[in-house]
């Protein structure tokens, strides 16, 4: 199983470099300028600077994006916690630095349960898909670093997808799949169903994770976009564990099936 994932990783890496070459399939660089007739009037160097500037301003600009898709309090029968799931990117249309973070901290004084940060190189490989590779570091429950390979984008029928595979420094292979959709009830009142599923290729005792499907979080969030960039929301989420993970939770005295009520802010800029 692990070998299969390694092979897939290698195959995707090859694909990426091939698509990089395909993208660079442009005329070989030559000393010839793209156009130069104004040089005769205003000087070669002056026009060269102006030409560089105007071309850079025609599609080579970098853009910056921050999204906190979820920044919310979660209330269940057992506990109250603060959950965040956000990302940021910086770069041009094709190449970006992509940061993702997800975590949960207790509002009952039990400290931070999970906190992870991913730093990825993201490359646009098709109109709707980005291939991403980089590292993830878990600060909680205990420090652990992973290699990451992810495919993020927009699937047909407007599903936002983020599928990631993680290989930890200890050799454990896990995966996460996130999908969300938006129903416009009005132009500003938006219902967002969202699902997150976690998988593991092996039993990881120290993380109380079984092999196979570990967990599914399925949520429904209703937000109101006062402005597009800032929308408070309320919602409900079903959080269930499966297989070995379910057993670990039961043994620890926890409830592997929970319904949580959420309230928070979705923001981007």
């Amino acid at each position, binding site marked *: 199983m692990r070998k299969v994932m390694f092979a897939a990783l290698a195959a995707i890496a090859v694909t990426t470099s091939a698509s990089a070459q395909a993208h660079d399939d442009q005329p070989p660089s030559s000393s010839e300028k793209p156009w130069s007739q104004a040089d005769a009037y205003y000087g070669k160097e002056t026009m060269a600077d102006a030409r560089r500037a105007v071309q850079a301003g*025609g599609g080579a600009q970098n853009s910056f994006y921050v999204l906190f898709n979820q920044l919310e309090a979660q209330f269940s029968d057992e506990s109250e916690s603060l959950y965040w799931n956000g990302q940021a990117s910086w770069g041009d249309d094709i190449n970006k630095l992509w940061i993702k973070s997800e975590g949960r901290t207790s509002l009952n004084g039990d400290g931070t349960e999970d906190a992870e940060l991913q730093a990825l190189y993201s490359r646009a490989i098709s109109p709707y898909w980005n291939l991403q590779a980089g590292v993830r570091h878990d600060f909680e429950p205990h420090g652990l670093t992973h290699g990451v390979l992810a495919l993020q984008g927009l699937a047909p029928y407007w599903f936002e997808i983020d599928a990631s595979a993680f290989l930890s420094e200890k050799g454990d292979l896990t995966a996460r799949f996130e999908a969300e959709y938006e129903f416009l009830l009005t132009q500003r009142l938006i219902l967002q169903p969202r699902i997150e599923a976690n998988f593991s290729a092996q039993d990881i005792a120290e993380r109380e994770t079984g092999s196979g499907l570990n967990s599914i979080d399925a949520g429904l969030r209703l937000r109101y976009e006062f402005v597009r960039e800032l929308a408070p929301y309320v919602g409900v989420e079903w959080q269930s564990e499966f297989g070995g993970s379910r057993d670990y939770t039961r043994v620890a005295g926890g409830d592997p099936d929970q319904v949580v009520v959420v309230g928070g802010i979705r923001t981007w800029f």
Partner: protein
Amino acid sequence: MLSRRHLLHYTLGAGAALGVAGMLPAWARSSSDGNLGITSASGTAFDLEIAEFPVRINGKTGKAVGINGQLPGPLLRFREGETVTLNVTNKLQEDTSVHWHGLLVPFQMDGVPGVTFPGIKPGKTFRYQFPVRQNGTYWYHSHSGLQEQLGHYGPIIIEPSERDPIAYDREYVLVLSDWSFTDPHRIYAKLKNNAESLNFQRRTLPDFLRDAANNGFSDTLEDRAMWGKMRMSPRDLADVGAPTYTYLINGHSTAENFNMVFQPGERVRLRIINASAMSLFNVRIPGLPMTVVQSDGLNIQPIETDEFQMGVAETYDVIVAPEDDQTYAFVAESIDRSGQAVATLGPRPGLRAAVPDLRPVPSLTMKDMGMSHKSMAGMSDMENRPTMSDMSGMSSMDHMTHGDMPRTAMGPDPHGPPTQLASVEASLKKGPGVANIAAMPSSRLDEPGIGLSDQPHRTLTYSQLRSLEPNPDSRSPQREVVIHLTSNMERYMWSFDGVKFSEVTQSIRFREGERVRLTLINDTMMPHPIHLHGMFFDLVNGGGDHKPRKHTVVVKPAEKLSVDVSAEHVGDWAFHCHLLYHMHAGMMQVVSVLPSTDKMPMDHDMMGHDMPMEHEMPMDHDMMDHSAMGHDKPEEMK
């Protein structure tokens, strides 16, 4: 029965023939006869200052960048045949420029930074000087950054050296624009991060339920599924709309009610300029027919209509002849119908015409995606697009061969027949910047524009336009250059042939004196007003030797249209979509007209055409000679 409209048409013709009202040129009349609310300057020398200044719109103060502290900039009146000098001083903290839109000027006076000159640095003055060789309604605007959005635009009227064939009693210039209190760079960033975030007219779940009730659940679901499968929105009519934009007429919102006054029975000439950054407008005057007499500064055979859609940068001159002592609403409605600007045409100053309600928002159709409903159903991916062998004049191209060729250097295939379509689709459909390729692009010249097909009144189409004068160059084109208008709305990437301006390594090359057919294929879901500097498009619309000649032509979604161009004026000329943020994202190129003595990059012997240089050129080449312009001094900066 002889309708009033027929009478109007008849009297217009009679007036033109006799020239009664045209005896006194408009510039010689007192300013109270027209152009109320917009200051003008005339003569041959002008001083323009580009600076930041506050403006008040709908009671709210905003920060404009514009000309001589006015929004829009002052109306410049030139006279055909004179040489004008314009000293443009930059009082901004950033570079600026002025481009004379539609004016045939020596290219080094055309005002495009990085293409025709270096731009105007802060604190510097640039002296533009050029002979005025045409007449009609034009405009001027910044070609630097996003300054157009901030108010850096103004109208130009050029009085003809000979008698104006258009007779009128008074005239108004109407500069349409889209104002935002949001910084344009912020607007662009929002589009980049979330391309639909400025659209507040998307289809909702209640829309679905209503459509399901009207059209049946399964049909409605199928419709939604088709759009969803393509990840496209039928409400993607404008990238930016109200409430981000406040629409203006001569700097006045609807509430500020720009006023035009007429005496019943007068013929009033309205010179309408779309100086928006991003907004196509539907223009109408309910209850008052309009006779269109000019488009893009060149006279056309008068045609009466009730409404027309106007691309950004296009101009239309219309004659209206209100006979009743009543007010009329001049309505400029944004193409997405999110907002409008309304001015009043009334018999006395200070009147307010009833403002019509915004009309229902139209939706795009499968036709706008470039495919029939039928072909859509069986479509599993873009590779399965229908063959185009049924379309005349198309040869089956070897896609793979073209895909391997350098894209920007390719242009048309010089070895093919002159009416070929040099298909570049094989390489186009790859890459993140191209989301869609119109499988079945078609001519849409006989359609009035998105959302106007079902109006109960007359709507203008490009196919109706005929030049008043015979075309100056009646040669057939010697070769065809095919250009795809390409985009990925989701990433907000816009380009020609999938290549952004930042990636261009070679301009499109024309040789001086040659006649080129430029065929534009719109692979996107939006209409694009395409503008080529330095030469006019002869729109191939069945007009024979009376094709309308335009500086800006709107290419509808999935439309394929052709324009013929005479490459008369040597120079590097900007070629771009006039939607500001599309240009900013990369939908721009340069057309280089190389001196005829230069060797073209491609071998033209295969074309089977000699350059017919003996053909009489419509323009006097000496006028365009650079040394004759007094611009042999290379340094114009003070």
